[in-house]
């Protein structure tokens, strides 16, 4: 991959990798975020991202790639939280809270057992988009393409479950399968973006651009691309600002995405257009 870049630009190859990570990772997170926000699963998103972080640390400990460990743990988290919440023995927020605390406990346990990799481990917590490798960019690209294929193929099923799961079930959609499929997709998204965005910050990049897009869009068909554009825009703008002012890249990206959401909220047609809130006569 590096041979494709002219020698004079080689010192800036890290910026090209960061821009591509922002393109694939930012878009991917934002698209996943549209479903998380619509289904009011924001706290579940936090839980999955921390599950992915614990899994990545487990990967370092076990000597496998951190992303592999992250995917494994986030899938286990998704598989655990769904039935706990669905069976109704405990409330969904309690189930998510219990798994969240379990994942945090495991993460700190693995962190304690990893003195040799402490810096690498903390890198997974904060992430660093400026140090992503071409292999990680490749993983992000593969995940973005995979997510696009799944969403395109099962658009109506995912839309139905995300908007009104009871109706989906009543019309003969296997809603449980689709729901767990969405959770697994979210887990994979959180896992693959871990090295570039970090376990703590990835969640902001999932929720903020999506919540901003939903202030403007009335349909999934427009909200998904709008969120992707905002997600990528936040990544690139954050990168530019961090490069220009020597700021931490991940934190700058997250702060930019928060500003984008705040501006969208203030200017949102949902707030200005009364037709959206008052039924027409």
């Amino acid at each position, binding site marked *: 991959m590096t041979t494709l870049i002219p020698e004079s630009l080689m010192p800036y190859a890290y910026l090209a990798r960061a821009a591509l990570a922002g393109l694939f990772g930012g878009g991917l997170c934002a698209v996943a975020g549209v479903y998380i926000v619509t289904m009011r699963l924001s706290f579940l998103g936090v839980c999955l991202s921390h599950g992915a972080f614990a899994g990545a640390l487990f990967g370092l400990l076990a000597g496998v790639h951190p992303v592999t460990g992250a995917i494994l743990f986030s899938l286990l988290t998704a598989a655990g939280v769904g039935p706990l919440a669905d069976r109704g023995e405990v409330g969904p927020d309690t189930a998510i809270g219990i798994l969240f605390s379990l994942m945090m406990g495991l993460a700190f346990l693995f962190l304690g057992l990893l003195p040799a990799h402490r810096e690498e481990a903390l890198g997974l917590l904060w992430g660093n988009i400026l140090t992503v490798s071409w292999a990680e960019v490749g993983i992000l690209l593969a995940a973005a393409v995979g997510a696009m294929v799944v969403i395109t193929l099962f658009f109506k099923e995912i839309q139905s479950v995300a908007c009104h799961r009871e109706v*989906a079930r*009543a*019309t*003969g959609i296997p809603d449980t399968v689709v729901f767990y499929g969405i959770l697994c997709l979210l887990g994979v998204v959180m896992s693959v973006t871990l090295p570039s965005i970090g376990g703590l910050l990835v969640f902001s990049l999932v929720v903020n651009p999506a919540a901003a897009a939903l202030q403007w869009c009335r349909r999934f068909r427009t909200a998904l691309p709008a969120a992707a554009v905002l997600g990528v825009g936040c990544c690139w703008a954050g990168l530019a600002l961090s490069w220009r002012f020597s700021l931490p890249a991940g934190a700058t990206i997250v702060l930019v995405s928060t500003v984008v959401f705040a501006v969208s909220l203030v200017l949102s047609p949902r707030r200005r257009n009364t037709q959206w*809130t008052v039924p027409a006569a």
Partner: protein
Amino acid sequence: MRSSTATPVIQLDGVVVVRDGRSVLRDVSVDILTGEFVGVIGPNGAGKSTLLGVICGLVCPAAGRVRVLGLNPADWREGIQARRRIGLVAQIQRFNPQAPILVGESVLLGRAGLRGLGRRFSRSDREVARRAMADTGVEKLAERPLGTLSGGELQRVAIARALAQEPEILLLDEPTASVDPAARQDLVNLLARLPRLTGAAIVCVTHDPWMLPAACERVLMLKHGRLLRGGPRARMLAAELLEELYAEEGSSFVLSVMSGASDCYGRSEGSPS
């Protein structure tokens, strides 16, 4: 009344449902025929909604035999197949009002199960959904976000979504319970037109017997999870039977039911005077 040779699309035999150690349905047996309009009435907690849940496979019976369209709805695979052919209108439409979905899209989603996993909607799907919206008077709402509708409009959209399924069975759970009085009358009129809009067997569960239209051929009375009796609508809505059915609801409710209720509905088409 339908001929006795018509095929039963719903067959319940000795159905028992237990929830938290309490029997919600006790030994309920009933056959419902193709194209029949059946009303199920009874006081709160009688097990009416549970009965609909059993029919569409969302509630598993502890005992008894259930066949719906020749399928066992409690079985995971057969339940999904059955629900694709059953339109269900829930009492309360639960969804996130901020969800990015328009009314037209929501009605079209009624056909999502029928179309099959991973298959795109066809032009005929869109045409069926458009017709269902026209039939239920929600065509003009097609471009509105679902979260901006009133309770009555949401119920109409739910009925349109169920009709878009081209169901063989249409289940209505207290369709007028959560709407304001003005919208209620509109919904009652729509219910009266339903048999002309669909050839489906219709089962309408309601707390208020007077909202059942004249097209409703048979009324079943459910109390404490037991099927008390069933018969032609005019006979079942006799004052003494209603008094017995609703005796525990309090005198004011019994009086309002006996008097034809219906300050808020007026009389539905064909209500006995």
